[in-house]
């Protein structure tokens, strides 16, 4: 994998980077190929990252005659900083200044189809592809120059957008590119830059999207304003699963400020020139009668409800080795998680325009290509006449209302050709209709031998699907409302190695005897889909809580107990570094004060992350004060260190919010968490006093997805710290103040 490292060659100083005499053994950087999230077939097996699906260089990089470079990625900026990381990679590998580079992100008509921006795959898939494509382009530019000057390519160097022979002769990339086709497949034999020659990779580069966000620039699809644009709102029942009873559509047209009502089947949209009257109209229509046509939602004991949703047994792991002997002690525990909401701060929004027979939709969907297919089917248009362009929205953390509102916008825009339509969901619609993160149950049983080693492990997880993203029209709410027979795809059980509800259900610990079973739940009484980290949040919460329960049963220190069962060196490194930095083992004085620890490698394929927390439980209220959280993370090759820190800090806080504060409320008819007052999330008073993130850099190693790495460890470290502080173990999320107070 790192053959090029031993061949590294660079000229020190001046930023000159020499070209390489190529040999057959040199390879680009691999990584991220296993378990591709995008489901596209590989056409060029062996090429790293998304180059396997899109091997042709000019799908990634184009060099104009003036030397300006355009880089294309099929991934989308979600606030995770992917734009900045891709720009760093491309500019560094190409040896150009940032001012010469323009980045185009997910757009069905111009970027390579990289499927979804999900699963912490962006650096693994797209970062790897762009870096290697850029290395290829730099080399081809030099090869072309070598031919022109009739010199060996290895005698040439590149610097700041030029090829030079070191004797004063230079040629600008633009001039070379004018006679060079980049419509050629990437070559495996062209290496990345030597690590020592890097200028930008691994360095701090401020995020390129932040300045506009701090100054009121047009940063989000919500901010788009096109000439002649109409505002729009959609009219539906209060929550998914509900329908309005015989709404008087004709009367809606008479509401003040409503210029046009678009309706077909049960789909109803209000269009108007001003926004506020539409908001008022929607409030009036919120009084309309509604019903739930399907089965009532089962209520009552969470574990019983979840386990009763038509489980289908799927073996995940059956590892057997009887040589360890008999267990002398068994420990068993059951953990549960409620349905969780993505809860974007800005409700979902899209702008659509039907013009010259082309439907263009500006959307914050995580998958412009699958969305295009679904919307084209819904509209009965050929896919090539539908264009979906990603524009940032409010952070989504998975499959929220983004795709549905895009379909709503398209249906509304179809009725007013030539006029752009900005469709925005209300807060209540976002809370009521977004797909939820599924509720889950995990039951764990562990056998310990006489010296306190785990010799048997049984993990059972009950979960709905974690992906109902649009694969066809029927997956979109609007299409279902049309009454034209569009139905959703059957729920899919995502397979290992990445898994869905079973994501991270296989512990990374060295367990000779281990059995893992997924109970895939086929009934979906509440609409569900992907929320950040899928099953990893729940499985790691359970496994790492249980590791502490086992450590307690053997009177072992939780960190020592983990290390005793961990053979993976990179895992050990982040565990040890977190423990060192945190000063693990040194108790903070005070009653109701405790330390908690947890570890996971996301998907067992992505970043390694260990987290320690110091918490205090307030006696009267049960409130949890997180005094300090410390994380150590190994993401492989680091491109933007602060980007990784930002993701881990955010992941820790979001996971504290999920784990400690959140649960979707519902009754037999519908969800009842209609806004923030009935779905409270973390506010500043419950935010940790300090968070530190330590990074383990592995230059030259594959990128390891990081965006979701903290969700599981943070949840378990929080639970373990509360258990250490109070002496009582809480196994049902959320670990609320009330639960802590009454169980203490």
């Amino acid at each position: 994998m790192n053959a090029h490292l031993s061949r590294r060659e660079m000229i020190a100083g001046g930023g000159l980077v020499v070209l390489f005499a190529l040999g057959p053994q040199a390879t680009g950087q691999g990584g991220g190929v296993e378990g591709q999230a995008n489901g596209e077939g590989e056409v060029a097996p062996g090429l790293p990252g998304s180059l396997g699906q899109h091997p042709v260089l000019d799908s990634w990089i184009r060099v104009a005659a003036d030397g300006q470079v355009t880089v294309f990625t099929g991934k989308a900026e979600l606030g995770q900083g992917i734009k900045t990381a891709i720009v760093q990679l491309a500019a560094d590998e190409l040896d150009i200044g940032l001012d010469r580079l323009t980045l185009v992100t997910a757009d069905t008509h111009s970027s390579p189809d990289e499927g979804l921006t999900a699963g912490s795959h962006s650096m693994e898939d797209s970062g790897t592809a762009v870096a290697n494509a850029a290395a290829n382009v730099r080399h081809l530019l030099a090869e072309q120059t070598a031919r022109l000057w009739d010199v060996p390519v290895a005698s040439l160097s590149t610097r700041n957008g030029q090829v030079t022979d070191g004797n004063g002769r230079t040629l600008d990339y633009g001039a070379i590119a004018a006679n060079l086709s980049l419509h050629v497949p990437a070559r495996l034999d062209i290496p990345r830059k030597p690590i020592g020659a890097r200028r930008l990779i691994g360095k701090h580069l401020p995020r390129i999207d932040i300045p506009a966000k701090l100054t009121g620039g047009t940063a989000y699809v919500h901010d788009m304003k096109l000439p002649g644009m109409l505002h729009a709102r959609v009219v539906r029942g209060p929550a998914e699963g509900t329908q309005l009873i015989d709404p008087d559509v004709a009367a809606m047209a008479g509401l003040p400020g409503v210029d046009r009502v678009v309706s077909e089947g049960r789909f109803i949209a209000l269009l108007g020139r001003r926004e506020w009257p539409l908001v008022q109209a929607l409030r009036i229509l919120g009084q309309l009668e509604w019903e739930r046509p399907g089965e009532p939602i089962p209520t009552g004991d969470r574990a019983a409800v979840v386990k009763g949703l038509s489980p289908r047994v799927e073996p995940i792991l059956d590892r057997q080795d009887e040589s360890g002997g008999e267990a002398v002690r068994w420990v068993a525990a059951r953990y549960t998680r409620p349905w969780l909401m993505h809860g974007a701060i800005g409700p979902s929004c899209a702008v659509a325009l039907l013009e010259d027979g082309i439907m263009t939709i500006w959307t914050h969907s995580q998958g412009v290509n699958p969305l295009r297919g679904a919307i084209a089917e819904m509209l009965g248009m050929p896919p090539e006449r539908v264009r979906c362009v990603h524009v940032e929205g409010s952070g989504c953390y998975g499959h929220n209302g983004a795709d549905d509102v895009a379909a709503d916008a398209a249906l509304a825009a179809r009725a007013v050709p030539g006029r752009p339509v900005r469709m925005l969901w209300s807060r209540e619609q976002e809370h009521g209709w977004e797909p939820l993160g599924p509720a889950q149950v995990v039951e764990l049983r562990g056998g310990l031998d006489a010296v306190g080693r785990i010799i048997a492990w049984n993990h059972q997880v009950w979960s709905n699907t974690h992906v109902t993203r649009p694969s066809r029209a029927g997956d979109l709410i609007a299409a279902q409302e049309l009454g034209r027979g569009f139905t959703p795809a059957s729920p899919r059980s995502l397979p290992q190695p990445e898994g869905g509800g079973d994501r991270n259900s296989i512990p990374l610990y060295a367990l000779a005897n281990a059995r893992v079973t997924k109970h895939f739940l086929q009934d979906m009484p509440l609409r569900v889909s992907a929320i950040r980290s899928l099953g990893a949040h729940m499985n790691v919460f359970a496994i790492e809580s249980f590791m502490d329960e086992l450590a307690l049963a053997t009177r072992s220190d939780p960190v020592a107990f983990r290390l005793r069962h961990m053979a993976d060196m990179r895992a050990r490194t982040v565990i040890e570094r977190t423990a060192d930095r945190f000063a693990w083992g040194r108790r903070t004085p005070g009653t109701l004060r405790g330390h908690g620890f947890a570890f996971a490698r996301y998907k067992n394929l992505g970043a390694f992350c260990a987290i320690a927390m110091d918490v205090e439980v307030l006696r009267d209220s049960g409130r949890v004060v997180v005094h300090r959280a410390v994380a150590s993370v190994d993401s492989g090759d680091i491109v933007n260190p602060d980007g990784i820190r930002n993701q881990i800090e955010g992941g820790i806080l979001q996971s504290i919010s999920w784990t400690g504060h959140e649960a979707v409320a519902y009754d037999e008819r519908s969800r009842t968490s209609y806004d923030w007052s009935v779905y409270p999330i973390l506010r500043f008073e419950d935010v940790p006093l300090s968070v530190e993130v330590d990074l383990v850099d592995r230059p030259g190693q594959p990128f390891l997805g990081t965006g979701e790495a903290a969700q599981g460890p943070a949840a378990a470290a929080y639970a373990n710290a509360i258990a250490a502080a109070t002496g009582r173990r809480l196994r049902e999320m959320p670990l609320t103040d009330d639960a802590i107070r009454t169980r203490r």
Partner: protein
Amino acid sequence: MIELEVNGTSHRINVDPATPLLYVLRDDLDLHAAKFGCGLGQCGSCTVLVDDKPVFACITPIAALAGRMITTVEGLGTREAPGIVQQAFAEEQAAQCGYCIPGMMARAEALLRRTTSPSEAEMRAAMRPVLCRCGTHMRILRAVRRAAAMRGGGVTDAAEPVR
């Protein structure tokens, strides 16, 4: 007709006086920093300053604002000449998706206009009405501490030092 003073400029607005300020800012004045989040005064992403105090623009009718001094994030500075709070947020890279950040900056500005030396608890209480879903809170707090220091004060018992 209502006369609104926004970021030092006077505007004559001819819409229903019950219209919340947010829609006038975004749709009539092309000021996009303040965001729609809930329309209920629950999330704070629409926060702007009225006479140095933070208000939820999504539930404040313009009828109540004649003669008051309205400041949005656009009034704090520009990309080329950012204000202190904007500089501090940039320095701390205090954004992920960034949707809540204009509301956060408005809250921070209001706090620092009141006092440049708040306590940690005062700062957190001042920021409390704005929700962030990305979990950027640590950076937002760092940015407010930094801005307080840049204005000649500082958070008196800062939970994390300004680096």
